[in-house]
């Protein structure tokens, strides 16, 4: 085991970084909890029949009047907070991961091509990226939301909420990928192995994806983790502001928005528990991203 760990520098560094280990445990637990929510959660929070008003506004189990059936307490209508968080995290992570993936595919593709071809193409892509950066994510989301409302028939609008939200977030994140991929590609273009491939007459697509891409994966992986955290946060922000998901299929952001109503009325758990969960998840993903950055960039160590 020890020899195995020593062989891989990343693993070796991992075993000596308590912060990274804790972050990995927290992130992994949240992701497993979210992925298996239907099996783990005590009840289905979407099923209206599963909760009763009698259980409304119960505090967490360690407070007086706590009920062991509801570990972290309930909402005003008796909805179980544990279940809500697990299902909410599930939605948040699905949106976050798919938005990050779309952004990565779009951004890396454009960034690689920009770095490879340079010149006019590069200029156009980078100016689009600049414009994209000038628009706040919320504005982009509102814009896409508005367009979707305008052109989609109202029956399917509700079903497409998640897709629209994902697209909006992806559009505000691709710039990071494109810029990083472009800069790294520029560096690799100077390397002689790339020149060798071009001289040999290899197809540009092959040079980009077979030769260059594997060599710029390091910084891109770091962006992926950091952007995953951003995507989750963005989704939470949008849902919190009411542009995101509705209250009947709540994500973490929606849960926090609901909790806001109870902030000053003594039922602190309704706001703070989902908030703490979101903070823990985002911070641990960010710590993992920082750790990856250190692994890939020995100079920062």
């Amino acid at each position: 085991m020890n020899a195995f760990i020593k062989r891989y520098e990343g693993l070796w560094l991992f075993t000596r970084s308590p912060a990274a280990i804790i972050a990995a445990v927290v992130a992994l637990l949240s992701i497993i909890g979210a992925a298996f929510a239907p099996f783990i959660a005590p009840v289905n929070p979407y099923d209206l029949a599963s909760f009763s008003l009698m259980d409304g506004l119960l505090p967490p189990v360690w407070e007086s009047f706590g009920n062991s059936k509801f570990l972290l307490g309930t909402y005003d209508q008796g909805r179980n907070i544990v279940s809500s968080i697990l299902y909410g995290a599930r939605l948040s992570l699905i949106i976050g991961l798919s938005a990050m993936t779309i952004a990565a595919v779009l951004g890396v593709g454009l960034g690689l091509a920009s770095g490879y071809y340079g010149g006019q193409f590069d200029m156009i892509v980078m100016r689009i990226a600049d414009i994209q950066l000038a628009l706040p994510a919320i504005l982009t989301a509102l814009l896409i939301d508005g367009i979707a409302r305008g052109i989609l028939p109202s029956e399917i609008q509700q079903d497409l909420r998640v897709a629209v939200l994902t697209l909006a977030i992806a559009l505000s994140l691709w710039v990071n990928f494109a810029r990083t991929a472009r800069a790294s590609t520029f560096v690799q273009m100077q390397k002689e192995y790339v020149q060798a491939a071009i001289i040999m007459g290899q197809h540009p697509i092959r040079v980009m994806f077979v030769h260059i891409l594997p060599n710029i994966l390091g910084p891109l992986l770091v962006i992926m983790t950091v952007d995953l955290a951003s995507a989750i946060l963005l989704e939470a922000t949008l849902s919190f502001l009411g542009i995101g998901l509705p209250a009947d299929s709540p994500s973490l952001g929606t849960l926090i928005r609901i909790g806001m109503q109870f902030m000053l009325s003594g039922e602190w758990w309704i706001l703070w528990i989902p908030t703490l969960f979101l903070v823990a998840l985002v911070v641990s993903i960010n710590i993992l991203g920082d750790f990856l950055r250190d692994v890939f960039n020995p100079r920062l160590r």
Partner: protein
Amino acid sequence: MLNVENLTVQFPSRFGDITAIEDVAMAIAPGEVHGLVGESGAGKSTVGAAIIGLLQAPGLVAHGQMTLAGTDLRNLTPIEAHDMRGKRISMIFQDPQTSLNPLMRVEYQLVETIQAHEDISAKDARARAVNILEEIGIQNASERINAYPHQFSGGMRQRVVIALALCTNPELIIADEPTTALDVAVQSQVLDLIKELALDRKIGFMLITHDIGVIAQIADRVSVMRNGRILESGSTGQVLGAPQHPYTQALLDSVPPLDRKIDRFRVPEEADGSSRNDAGDHAEGWLLEGVQQKKVGLKIENLRVAFPGVRTSLWRKPDAFTALHDISLNVKPGSILGLVGESGSGKSTLAKTITGLVNPTAGHIGLGGEILPPGKSRTRNHPSRQIVQMIFQDPFSSLNPRHQIGVILSEPLWLYGLVTDGQERRELAAAMLDLVGMASDAIDKYPHQFSGGQRQRIAVARALLARPRFLICDEPTSALDVSIQAEILNLLKNLQSKFGLTILFISHNLAVVRQMADDVVVLRNGRIEEFGQTQDVYQNPKSEYMRELLELTPILPVA
């Protein structure tokens, strides 16, 4: 003055302690230039870093004594060590581009250094700085001192670095490859300066270098290092003239001589090189099949390459920078043409133009009687893509670090449709490795698992697997140690004579070109200074420039 005994430096790592240098002993007297020579990884720089107390973490001096004129260098407090650096021991680094702060005027850097070590007014410090700059040969020093580093040329910049090392009147200066980044002419001036300073100011110099020619030119004494140990030490004449240790002898044998051409370098037989088996013959046979085509020559006519210049005004079109002026030359089929020139002379631009990476402004290139489409108009499947192959300077960047050797080598076979069967491609790649003197099991490894010389062999194998007729070697050995260089040059010569390849051999190293080339072109600032048979050009150079270059190149005393 400096006395080092039993110096051992260790680097703790996750694989246990690594001993970088072991039991190193040396003494440097005032006014002595002590050369420390060895190939990369020998631990030369670590010796210097240990003496000046700048070992990279986590390195540490495990045991040994180091004294400088009675001061024990090992028992200094951090503050004392800090005062010692710069004041009594200075350092000159390899690259003058990076060892000066680009955002500070030279004046400030010099005055800052002087004031850090002496209680002296800024005015007096400046006066001293001007004096030193004048002493080391910077004209008009009182004005030039206000310049920024980028306003000096490479050689002048290295003089400023030397002035910086000198301005506190140190007793010992450690010069770590001080001339490696410089051209021959500048190198010779900087070396003369070092020698002069040692004699006039009685400063001890520790000259760390891989270049035996540099040692021969100015060192009084020399120590030969390998694998962290000093193998041989003595006066320069004695060590270079009558080397005792077999390694020193081998090292001297692999230095290419400037004044004569030798057929093959004497290289110690390698264990796996001699056990050449049938696999190599397979590759040889396969290559010879391709040789059925006739040899190709290259003809360049009035080639001109201009790059867009830097825009200085919003309204005016920027002046173009002309990298190559009307170059015409001819590489005879089956011969080796050497292309020499200092950095910036346009050597690499020429190579890139031939391969189509750079678009020429005028002129054309003919390969075996056919005109090559210039620059981007050359299609991906143009036949020249296969016929012309290139071997690059830096073997650490010319192989894709994420691909296995087998994948790298199969690429030309697959790309040019030479071998369609995957298994066969693999076998041929393994056979080719054998032909270039590598073990066939290298095929499943990654480039980082090999040394520079081995990687360059792999790069040669990749070029050969395209069944090329014309090879461009762009400084193929300048990133390699001299003994490895000898092996690679031997390999290239063998392959050339066996397969009748035509080679364009680019190098800044006159001695290497002398060994390789049939004809030679001397390039300077994008113009041809001289073009002729190697023998003639080296023995009776017609141009003033070539004569100068030949004079300035350090040569070994022939034993």
